[in-house]
Structure formats: structure tokens, C-alpha cells
């Protein structure tokens, strides 16, 4: 009997030591390693289940009018309300378009979502913290997440995320669907691996924004590359857009400033000594 007690004590001590060393039990979390890309053949519109541009967004009349003006400007060679041509980050929710690949690193306190383009980085805090006070708003916002074991298998399978504290300007996609200038956007997500195919990830994204008449829900889908090669997507390198004042110009292939729109006036050169022209 004494031997048994001693053996159990030894067992308990060894297990305690092992558990103590195991500050982060990875097996409680899903395997979302590798590189995630949007499926080939899918456009870059926000709701990929619908054609781009018209009919995408439940915009308020005011923001529908802004969107229409934006489309007109883009048709004339402008950039409309898409601010990313000058290498401003996509911000949320647009970053989850994942035009360039994404990596998800799951850690006990924070899950990092790294997007290759512009090194966009989301930190999703899963340690039960409350919303911070007096934090500067950002394009990617502040994200609080919660892991759920919806399958009841003792392993988390869904990451629920809410993102707030955003800054602008932001648009939903390259067509310039605008988000409200008040930046009161709240983005809610449910991220999970497909039940039938572990190499497909879904992100159900609901955006609540004052540019919309109702919350707008879309599902983004990503495919996994398990042996990724990472490249650098550096927006500023080779960017041919030149913004001066409120005008966007282009750089010609031979290095001169050129109009981006038909009949566009050249920049005002009042600060140059005109006698040197």
C-alpha cells in the first residue's frame, strides 16, 4: 500500500511538472498553420458571391451617392474613394480580402493575422481583456477574440472576433465602396476551418457601419498552402501614383509626371523659381 501511495505521488509530481511546463497547450487550438490565399478565379470585390460594383452593398442614400460619384471618377481615370493607391493600408474589414497571402499564428494571449501586402498585421487578443481606453485608432483596429469549442471535442474550432477603434479613410474594396467617415465601424467575424476540407478556411464577416442601412454579412474563403513561399509585397516600390494636393497624377515609364485623367491640369508650381524652367 505504501508503495502504491509512493507511486501515485511520483506520478502526480511528474504530471504536475509536465503540465507546469506546458504553458501553451497547442493541441487545444486548431491547426491553421501555413499560408492562406483567396481561391483562384475569385475577384477582389467585398462580397465575392456577387458581381463587383453595383448591387454589392446596402448603402444609405447618402453613401450610395458618394459611391456613384466614386465610380464616375474611376471611369474618368481617378481613384474615387479607394484610398489605397497611395499605399495606405486596406484596414478592416477590407484587409480580409487577402489579395496577397495571409498567415495566422495562434498564441495563448494573442492570435496574429499577418497579411503579406504592406505587412498588415492584426493582433486579436484572446485573454479576456476589455476594450482599451485612449488607444489611437488604426486602420486595422483593435480586435478582441474568443475561442469556441463548438464541436464539443475538447478543442477550439471557431475564433469569434470583434474589431473596433478604426481610422479612415477606408473602403470595402477597390471599386471604392465607402465606409462612413465617422469610423464607428464594428466588424464581427467567425473564423473556422471547413468541416469537410481542413485546407479551406471560412471567415464570416459582418460589418456594422453608418454608411450601411443594415449589418452587411459576407463569407470570405481561403485555401491553404502548407509549404508556403513568402514574398514581399511592397506597395511603395514601383507605385506609379503621385498625389499632389487633392490630385492624383501618374509617373510615365520614362520618369515624367503625366496626367491620370483626360484634360487634367498640371500641378501648381508656385514654390519653384519659374525662371529656372
Amino acid at each position, binding site marked *: *500500500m505504501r*508503495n*502504491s501511495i509512493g*507511486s501515485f505521488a*511520483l*506520478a502526480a509530481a*511528474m*504530471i504536475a511538472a*509536465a*503540465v507546469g*511546463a*506546458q*504553458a*501553451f497547450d*497547442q*493541441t487545444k487550438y486548431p491547426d491553421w498553420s501555413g499560408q492562406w490565399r483567396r481561391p483562384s478565379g475569385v475577384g477582389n470585390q467585398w462580397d465575392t458571391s456577387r458581381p463587383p460594383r453595383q448591387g454589392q452593398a446596402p448603402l444609405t442614400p447618402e453613401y450610395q451617392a458618394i459611391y456613384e460619384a466614386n465610380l464616375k471618377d474611376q471611369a474618368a481615370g481617378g481613384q474615387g474613394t479607394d484610398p489605397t493607391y*497611395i*499605399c*495606405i493600408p486596406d484596414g478592416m474589414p477590407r484587409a480580409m480580402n487577402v489579395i496577397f497571402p495571409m498567415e495566422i*499564428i495562434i*498564441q495563448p494571449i494573442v492570435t*496574429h493575422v*499577418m497579411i503579406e501586402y504592406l*505587412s498588415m*498585421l492584426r493582433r486579436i487578443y484572446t485573454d479576456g481583456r476589455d476594450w482599451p481606453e485612449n*488607444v*489611437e485608432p*488604426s*486602420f486595422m483596429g483593435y480586435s478582441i477574440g474568443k475561442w469556441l469549442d463548438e464541436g464539443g471535442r475538447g478543442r477550439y474550432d471557431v475564433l469569434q472576433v470583434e474589431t473596433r477603434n478604426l481610422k479612415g479613410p477606408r473602403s470595402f474594396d477597390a471599386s471604392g465602396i465607402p465606409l462612413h467617415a465617422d469610423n464607428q465601424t464594428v466588424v464581427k467575424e467567425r473564423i473556422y476551418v471547413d468541416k469537410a476540407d481542413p485546407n479551406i478556411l471560412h471567415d464570416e464577416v459582418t460589418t456594422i457601419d453608418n454608411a450601411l442601412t443594415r449589418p452587411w454579412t459576407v463569407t470570405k474563403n481561403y485555401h491553404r498552402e502548407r509549404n508556403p*513561399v*513568402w*514574398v*514581399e509585397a*511592397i506597395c*511603395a*516600390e514601383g507605385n506609379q501614383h*503621385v498625389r*499632389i*494636393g*487633392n490630385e492624383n497624377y501618374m*509617373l*510615365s515609364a520614362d*520618369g*515624367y*509626371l*503625366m*496626367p491620370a485623367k483626360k*484634360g*487634367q491640369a*498640371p*500641378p*501648381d*508650381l*508656385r*514654390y*519653384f*523659381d*519659374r525662371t*529656372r*524652367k
Partner: protein
Amino acid sequence: MLSQSTFGAITLLAALTTTVAGAQAFDDAKYPDWSGQWRRIEGGPPRYDMSKPPGHGQQAPLTPEYRALHEQSLKDQAAGGQGFDTTYMCIPMGMPRQMSGVFPFEFIFAPKITYILFEMMIQQPRRIYTDGRDWPKNEEPTFAGDSIGKWIDADGDGRYDVLEVETRNLRGPRVWDQSGMPMHADNEAVITERIYLDKANPDILHDEMTTTDHSLTRPWTATRNFKRERKVIWTENNCTEGNNHVVIGKENYFRSGDGYLMPARKNQAPPDLRYFKQSQK
């Protein structure tokens, strides 16, 4: 001879420890605590060897050819130009300059990769592969390069304390610091690092860095020192937002506070507007 109850206990022990060990795919207790936010300790202009003054004070072991290029860069900067420093255009600094710690960074340890993530968004994340892999073949060079690392238990206490890293496959243009001291255009630099916590102060991190580059007459070693912030607030440092440099052709201009193009240097000529209709000028 073991009693039945003892045998049962040992069987239970074996079963339980197997379960625990199986569940323990990544034992983070084997790794040092480098959590939090790290930024440089020493002040002044960011430079490769923080123990020495900037510019000529760096005493960089440059070849005569690259010393002349550095002089050219300094001269251009003195005249209002940017010299060979390309970061004003929001081009990544690349290695080894991106480890300056001017803006904060953080580490993430994963089973196969140690990540270094930088607040300054133009810096590409560093992925340091620690799974024993060989150098990749046919991969595009990058500003951050390919990094292979090895965790070392230097003091033999059963826990890793040093990360040894080698970085290759870099692209350019890269410079050593903001004085525009150029690295070699062949981009064959190799950077080795030993990263470890200070023995006396766990909130100080050292990065002993040796760079081999054809702009140098010999490998150049310097130690970077970083201090930890444990209560972290991350911000977004997006280079392009509010960047008032405007590059047209080979010329750098500025955007004035009231939104007009203006010279960046004395007597700079305005840009050639040949592609605009003259009547609109």
C-alpha cells in the same frame, strides 16, 4: 517484485504522461521569455554600431570604392538630398538595418519559426526557421532575407537562451544607416546574429551582429541593445501616410503644408511637365 497496485500506478503514470507529452507539441517552457515590446536603448541617429557616433564616427571598414560612395551620399544629404538612403520613399530598410530598434518589434516563438514583427509597417516580418531546414533554392531575394536559426542552451539549464541566426538571399538597394552608407550592390551580404537576454537584467536583449558584405574590407561586428516594455501598446506606423516626399524620375521633391509641390533642395528645377497640354500649364 512489484505489487499489483504499484504496477497499476506505474501503468497509470505511463498512460497519463504519454497523454500529456502527446499534447505538448510545443513546449514553450523550453524557450526564453522574450515577450513584450523591444526598442533600442541608445539614442541618437540610428546607426549600425550604436556604440560609436554616426556618420564618419562609425569607422566602418568600407572599401575605398564604397567609402567614396558614402562621401557622395553625405554630400548629397548636406545639399538637401537623400543620398543613397531610400527609405524616404517607404522602401523597406532590410537587413541588417531593420534591426535598429528605432521603432518597436516583438518576437513570436512557434515550433518551426521564430518571428520578428515590426511596428513600422514597411519592415517585412522576419521568419527565422528553426526546424533544421537547409537554405531554400530558387527563392526570390527579399529585403528581410531568408533566415535560418538555431536555439542554443548555452548555460546548460535545460532551457534555450541564445538564438543564433544567419540571414542570406537579400535584395537591395540597402544602406547601413540613414547617412546612406551603401551596402554592396551585389546583395551578397551574410548576417549572423546571436540574440540573448542580458544575464543581469531580463528586460534587456542583446543582438551581436556580424555582417559580411563586399562593401567592407572585413566582417563588421556590432552589438545592438534593446529594452523591454512589458505593458505594450502597439500603434500603426505606416510610412506612406503623411509622407511628404514626392519622387518624380530621379528627383525628390516635397509636398508643402498647403498641398503644393515644392523644391527639396536650393535652386531645384521644377519637374518636366511635357506630358501635360501646354495650354493647361
